[in-house]
């Protein structure tokens, strides 16, 4: 039984289940934060699966998701600026969760793959993921002042 796939299953079941519950119920600000959290968790699950299936080429999926996940959150932050203006989401709790989990997963994977080009790629994915999430939660909690301008 592959430990990496077990970790991915647990992260998927618990993490994605919680974010799905978060995005389905509650005020709009919590739903947007849950959507942002779901992309970060999915990126970590993809990294674990790439290691579990012993297929380095699956890391490309995590790379694209680490890039486009925060872009999706920027879309929501930008176009829902009016709806979020009066009740800005405080996204710092989940962001620290993502930063912690991301750092842990990426270091574990780098240790497993050893010093090579592949672990350099993993570090790039980890950096993009953490940087993207910090900026996305910054954008959510008031990046766009939501004034009525083009």
């Amino acid at each position, binding site marked *: 039984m592959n430990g990496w796939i077990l970790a991915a299953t647990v992260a998927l079941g618990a993490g994605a289940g919680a974010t799905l519950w978060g995005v389905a119920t509650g005020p709009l600000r919590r739903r947007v934060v849950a959507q942002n959290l779901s992309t970060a968790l999915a990126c970590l699950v993809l990294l674990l699966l790439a290691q579990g*299936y012993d*297929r*380095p*080429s*699956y890391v490309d999926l995590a790379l694209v998701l680490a890039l486009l996940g925060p872009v999706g959150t920027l879309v929501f932050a930008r176009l829902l600026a009016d709806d979020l203006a009066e009740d800005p989401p405080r996204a710092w709790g989940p962001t620290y969760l993502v930063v912690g989990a991301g750092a842990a997963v990426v270091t574990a994977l780098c240790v497993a793959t050893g010093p090579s080009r592949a672990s350099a790629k993993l570090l790039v994915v980890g950096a993009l993921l953490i940087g993207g999430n910090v900026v996305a939660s910054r954008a959510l909690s008031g990046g766009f002042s939501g004034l009525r301008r083009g």
Partner: protein
Amino acid sequence: MTAVTHVLPYLVAVWIFLIGCYGLATSRNLIHAVGCLSVCQAATYVLLLAVGYRDGATAPVFSDVEPGSRPVVDPVVQALALTDVVVGATVTALLLALVVQVAKRHGTVDPDELSELRG
């Protein structure tokens, strides 16, 4: 337990398709209806890829695996699902353009109100 897993993916695909059709039929907003249609389309991806799966196999991409060293999954259904995803996105865009036109001409996006407005 294994008897269920032999048919679970197909049943999930059927469930997603039916729930999408239910949403499409009972929607009170055309934008919501377009979202339900993309849910229906997601059912086809799940069914296609479930048909092509092989136990203990890996992806038929040999950039980092020696050809023939591991059993591989069916690539033909993956090619079908791949173009299905991209076409689905552009068809959703075309439908949303139609919704914008309906909103411009009739001022509403509620399908029930539309049927009352003539012309």
